[in-house]
């Protein structure tokens, strides 16, 4: 990780990451995000002070393992209740703009 805040995250990286996260960023705020993200990543760079090559990453705070359950239906069908709160539905389907022209 770089020492210079400017070089940690540049404008192109912000635009690329914003696309991955599907968030539109106005062009005039890109450089602000770049410098704020750089600040956070500089903070994160403090982690490099310690050698963790022999440390296992934490998987769960109390070392619990994923619980399994019987493969049976546990939820009732509440499609109408859930679709009532959707921005746009028709005949039980969620509506979005056409994907294929």
């Amino acid at each position, binding site marked *: 990780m770089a020492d210079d805040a400017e070089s940690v995250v540049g404008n192109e990286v912000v635009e690329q990451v914003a696309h991955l*996260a*599907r968030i539109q960023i106005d062009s005039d705020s890109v450089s602000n995000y770049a410098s704020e993200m750089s600040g956070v990543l500089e903070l994160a760079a403090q982690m490099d002070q310690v050698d963790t090559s022999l440390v296992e990453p934490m998987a769960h705070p109390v070392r619990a393992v994923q619980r399994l359950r019987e493969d049976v239906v546990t939820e009732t069908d509440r499609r109408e209740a859930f679709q009532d709160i959707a921005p746009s539905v028709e005949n039980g389907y969620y509506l979005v703009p056409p994907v294929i022209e």
Partner: protein
Amino acid sequence: MHTLTLAEMRSALESGDFSSVELCRHYIDRIKSQNEALNAFVSITEEQAMEAARVADQKRASGNLDGALHGLPIGHKDIFCTDGVRTTCGSRMLEEFVPPYNATVVEKLKAAGAICLGKTNMDEFAMGSSNENSYFGAVRNPWDNDRVPGGSSGGSAAAVGGRLVPACTGTDTGGSIRQPAAFCGITGLKPTYGRVSRYGMIAFASSLDQGGPMAVTAEDCALLLNEMAGFDERDSTSIERDKDDYVSSLGNSIDGVKIGLPKQYFDAGLDSSIATALQVAIAELEKLGAKFVDIDLANQHLSVPAYYIVAPAECSSNLARFDGVRYGHRCDDPKDLEDLYKRSRAEGFGREVKRRILVGTYALSAGYYDAYYLKAQKIRSLISRDFSQAFESVDFILGPTTPSPAFKLGEKTGDPVEMYLNDIYTIPANLAGLPGISVPCGEAEGLPVGMQLVGNYFDEARLLNVAHQYQAVTDWHTRLPE
């Protein structure tokens, strides 16, 4: 009425000093007269609450009590889904979201007889340490309206601190119960990770998020935790372990308990007024028989850097669900699906949320995973190991909850990293999954100061008892803003 604790109100209701209708009316009137100044509530459920209070009084008259909290008013942080009641999570994204189900915590408290008076303001999606990140406006500290109440459960803390409601639920991902509790002069407990169900609690960072009680006293927190805690099969990270009775152990002596003082918690970064208040609190606890030893939490200083990778990474994943399709905000006239996603999310999320999603997306993106997320999870192991070693020789760990008393609105909004450093004493317990409580222990510049006690896993009962014993001989928790 509003100077009483939940426990005292319960006795008063039992002996007929007043009814639930009178009690709820009193608090709703307080909310109505003071919320304009504090902005602690985003929704007031007056009609439902008064109806529930009438039913509670009728049931009481016929000797039929719902549970331990029968007829007692509470508030819910607006992160907990409430069936038929708008749940915003402090975000424009969910400005009109009315959940079709209750969070487990909401369900359990309701089953115990508690009456919800409204939903409290919060930092958007629980991201913030000052409650300045709410789409519904900043919350103000009841002790000084020019100061922040802390965050993210700032609405809950301000509401209880100003006695607009006697108790509230909160959630704590990096200090969001304990830090605002300290700033507003109340008691707040973050339980062990997995102790309280996350079902219906809108997810921010799933490996850190934990719900808990915020109230005037440790005893009231125990009353609430008795109902909130327990295994829930609907939360895959809920721990399959019986809950304790957090109330019955409150009379125990703390003579001989060993409390560790991490040298890293009392360094130069700590405001001297806080350090002074803590020294007085330590002396009080010594009088009760507690023994203090110095301990070393060597990797403590890496908590904030690790947290501000883990939390954004998990948030970027959790908040991917807000896509403008199934529920939540949708932009007008999307030209295609990508435009719908991008503009709905750009309009629905506030600046801090977007920043964290971007940081998290970056940290998880190809080529950076090992350097950031994996590294942070390894740091978590080190921090957790430090705690485990400390708990081999001590029962509890004591320190400050915050580096300073409540700061002024706008004071730290310019620099995200400066804001993040407020969480330095609270984050370690989240990273390790340990329970922690903040207890009022003094005043600095006329503002409340909080003392934090961290316990070992699932040791909430003893933790609450230490706080309760301390509150039995001190009166900081009873003090009210002017």
